[in-house]
């Protein structure tokens, strides 16, 4: 087969035996060429940028950067085949978005089917960015609340610990995260954060604001029937009527 007709593939998977079985199965697919292997999410992200593969095999639970976090900050749009052992949240997300995934351990037949489908999509020029976006902005609940939010600036990846978040503000398709060390813009929905941040630490006080209870200084009346939240650092945020109701249930002021 002609070298440039081949599909390039990258394996991102932290366990060596898991990588080797993918390599073994792929050995029989002449049209696919393995261009790299990564044992953690950060290496995966950088390798995607450097090698620009057509197809990636992506594990979910990995050191440094999880598979889902990698997707959140991914700018390239490779075709993805997910591999996971057991993650109810991930499986639900895949099923809801008709994304192909392999449950470990998987059979060669199942693997071949997934690869064939991916090859067809790549050859027909299907754009995977749609499902990637949907996967990361799932309106469903994760198995455990978020503890960190990944942010990318160029090649630098950093995490905002959830306990450092002061509040979030909706901005069209984006959410601006204001934290103790600055702010960061994420392509994400408010609904996602509202359902996946620890529920007893954050309150949606307004359609556009999700606030950390710990960072609220006080709440004051502001005109007829409206209120305003004054943050500990003095910043003032609007409170809607339903937001005020939620606030009253949770904190005393």
């Amino acid at each position, binding site marked *: 087969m002609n070298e440039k007709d081949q599909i390039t593939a990258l394996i991102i998977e932290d366990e*060596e035996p898991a990588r080797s079985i993918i390599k073994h199965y792929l050995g029989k697919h002449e049209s696919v060429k393995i261009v790299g292997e990564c044992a953690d999410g950060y290496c995966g992200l950088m390798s995607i940028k450097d090698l620009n593969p057509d197809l990636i095999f992506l594990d979910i639970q990995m050191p*440094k950067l999880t598979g889902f976090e990698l997707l959140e900050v991914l700018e390239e749009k490779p075709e993805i085949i997910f591999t996971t052992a057991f993650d109810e949240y991930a499986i639900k997300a895949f099923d809801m978005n008709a994304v192909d995934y392999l449950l470990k351990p998987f059979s060669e037949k199942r693997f071949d089917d997934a690869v064939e489908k991916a090859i067809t999509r790549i050859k027909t020029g299907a754009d995977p960015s749609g499902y990637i976006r949907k996967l990361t902005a799932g309106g469903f609940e994760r198995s455990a609340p*978020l*503890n960190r939010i990944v942010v990318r600036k160029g090649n630098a990846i950093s995490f905002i610990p959830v306990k450092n978040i002061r509040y979030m503000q909706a901005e069209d398709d984006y959410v601006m995260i204001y934290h103790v060390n600055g702010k960061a813009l994420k392509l994400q929905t408010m609904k996602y954060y509202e359902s996946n941040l620890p529920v007893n630490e954050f309150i949606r006080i307004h359609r556009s604001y999700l606030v950390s209870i710990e960072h609220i200084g006080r709440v004051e009346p502001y005109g007829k029937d409206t209120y305003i939240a004054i943050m500990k650092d003095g910043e003032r945020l609007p409170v809607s009527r339903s937001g005020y109701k939620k606030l009253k249930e949770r904190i005393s002021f």
Partner: protein
Amino acid sequence: MIHPFLSKRNRLLVYWLIWLIIGLGQSLLITFSSDISVSASFSDGFFSAVIFAIIAVALWFPVNQFNTSRNSLLIAILNHLIMAIIALGIWVFLTKFLVLTFLQDNVAYKSFWENSIYYRLGAGAFMYAVVILTYYLMISIDNIAEKNIREAKLENMLKETELMMLRSQINPHFLFNSLNSISSLTISDAERAREMVIKLSDFMRYALSRKDDRTVILQTELENLRLYLDIEKIRFGERLVLEENVQDECLVVRVPNMILQPLYENAIKHGVYESADVVNIKLSAIRVNGAINISISNDFDPESIPPGGTGTGLNNVRRRLELYYGNRAWLKTTKEDSVFTAELYIPEQADIKI
């Protein structure tokens, strides 16, 4: 409920003793307060006490019957009224008949009987009330005792169920990843694949065992833990480095089974999953006055923020220790520099049977 007096020999003895005293008291009372002969007084006292005693024993059965069938208060009172009339009637009639038969028609006694009939009925009614109240008291004491036993049983059952649930929480992630490693090894190294299948089976058998003795000696726990760690070593390879420093005298101390595995799982999760570097996990166990102190420490990156977790592993260990030992055992975790340590303190001789 069975009969409170007939069911136990010494209770029956006390019962008769009480009636003997009552009979004696009555005999003496009659002797000093009337002019009939001493033998007439004593036969009156004796017969009336014995007959009432027998009637009182029999009264238990209707009382127990009334108690179990839930009647209204009015019906209960009516029942007792009728029963009292019947009981007193029998008592009076039989006493008179037997005393007169025994004394062979004593005229003085006959007139005494006529004069004393109202006192007799009054005393009888009083004794009837005392007997009935005693029975009710005994029934309620018995009910309370039974309730306590039931509650204790229920509590034990709950504890048992909770322990069962807390124990065998093998992470399915571990199981499926191990199976995936085995699947991979069958291609490259069938020998090691077989070895891993056997280790996984042995470990699962230990983890899932439903045997009654839920504590094992530390040596057994460690042997099974090594099976788990061998499997993890195949998955993580060189990234996982293990060290063990266990005093020989600790090996015979009993610990709840599968108490160490969640601590290792936690160490692996935070050490190996969050860094791609080599992670050292150290185990040490020492004996300290009447207890053992087991500590498991792992390297971790203090800068790293775990992606999110519920901390169920460590909480389960804490809860199990509490259920087994109350507050005599504990689990303490500390983070110092880049080392996370989980320290277990388990008393040596403890009544661990719940």
